[in-house]
């Protein structure tokens, strides 16, 4: 078995400013990596570089493709990268409006992804969309409604359904519970935790919330000023932090 992602020396500069610097790690199938750190520490920059959305200044991201094994995601051609993003990856944005099409129905938001990977049979697509809406706890009666009429929590669950319906191997999430009320967060976290476990998904989850990281991630990377300062098993990093910055993060919250 190969790592799904092999990241080495990944750096992204914004002019003279560091976005992220010299990040290296491996992610294995089924592994869930959390990226934590305060605002501005480079989490989103790193996630964008990892998910083929932001070309790094230096370093490499190898993805273990089903056909040819490990391939540099920035060296492959654009059509192949697009195909990979449709078939193998999911991207869950912090703001669900960035990941959904607000002008088409909930069912179409989910069905569209299936059509993008070749599904053509209308009844089949609708049945799968319906099934996924149910999995993310959205009432089937809402299938023809526009997302505009949905609450924040529902929008985020719809975005998750849209991403998971094609059975990706790897999902990138940027602050998936970010803009939500605490009670809505708990429900979404429980859902994410179950889906990731049941589907054996690999995931990279950016969050500034250590409680979210503890619940979802197997491993953590702690970032400060664009660099990874500490990594390890999630509970070990949170319960026995070694780096001064990690200790500060952990001691600044109530019971992560």
């Amino acid at each position, binding site marked *: 078995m190969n790592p799904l992602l092999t990241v080495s020396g990944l750096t992204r500069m914004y002019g003279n400013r560091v976005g992220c610097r010299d990040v290296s790690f491996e992610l*294995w199938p089924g592994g869930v990596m959390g990226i934590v750190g305060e605002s501005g520490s480079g989490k989103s920059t790193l996630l964008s570089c990892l998910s083929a959305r932001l070309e790094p200044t230096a370093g490499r991201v190898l993805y273990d493709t089903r056909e040819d094994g490990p391939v540099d995601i920035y060296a492959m051609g654009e059509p192949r990268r697009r195909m990979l993003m449709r078939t193998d990856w999911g991207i869950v944005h912090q703001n669900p409006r960035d990941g959904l099409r607000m002008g088409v129905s909930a069912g179409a938001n989910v069905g569209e992804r299936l059509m993008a990977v070749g599904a053509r049979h209308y009844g089949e697509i609708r049945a799968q969309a319906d099934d996924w809406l149910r999995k993310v706890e959205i009432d089937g009666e809402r299938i023809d409604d526009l997302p505009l009429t949905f609450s924040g929590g529902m929008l985020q669950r719809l975005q998750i359904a849209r991403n998971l319906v094609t059975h990706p191997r790897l999902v990138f999430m940027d602050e998936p519970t970010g803009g939500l009320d605490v009670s809505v967060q708990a429900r979404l976290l*429980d859902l994410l935790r179950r889906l990731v476990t049941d589907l054996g998904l690999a995931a990279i989850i950016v969050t500034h919330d250590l409680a979210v990281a503890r619940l979802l991630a*197997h491993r953590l990377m702690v970032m400060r000023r664009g660099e990874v300062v500490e990594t390890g098993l999630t*509970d*070990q990093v949170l*319960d*026995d932090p*070694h780096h001064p910055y990690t200790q500060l993060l952990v001691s600044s919250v109530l019971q992560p």
Partner: protein
Amino acid sequence: MTDQIRVDSLSKTYVLHTQGGIEIPVFADAALSVASGECVTLHGPSGAGKSTLLRCLYGNCKPDSGAIHVSHGEGTVDIASAPPRVVMEVRRRTLGYVSQFLRAIPRVPALDVVAEPLRALGVPVETAQARAGELLARLRIPERLWSLAPATFSGGEQQRVNIARGFAARHPILLLDEPTASLDARNRAVVIELIAEAKAAGTALVGVFHDDEVREAVSTRVHTMQG
């Protein structure tokens, strides 16, 4: 009997960077071996480092030097230096741990909390839940609570859910940190029985028990820690 756990010259000092870099040495050059069928109890005053040692064995605490060899499948793994995904795999198949306090996961019912280590081993849901129910019943958690998330349970109930979870998967190694601290005499007796059954089945146990009566009942050997 072969050792399931062998700790070699293990050292741990906490460094509190947010408090002026204060150093708290916990132990140095610690050694410990545990064979299958044994229950070794860690004994010593509060602050002696008993919980820290157990947490190191589980990979929850990172020692500064030394090794923690654990029998895992056909081979051994050094928990002190193994990468996270290997430690996770050792936890899934080999290492059980009953922490001092249950960390309740929002919205997950008690029955599933207990069944989860079995589910992680691929045991079908009905079988896992049946075993979970059996343990919860033995530990006198009323059946009406099984479908509720333990967050609202009393301290003693949470601890019994935690114990049931620890024993559910019958891991070859089981670590117990004051599992009987908030239990009444009848439930303490159940825990003593569960430990005796695990020993008879060949489990290697390491435990901390504040209660002399429980310690005497379960210990094969006492490992004294000075602090």
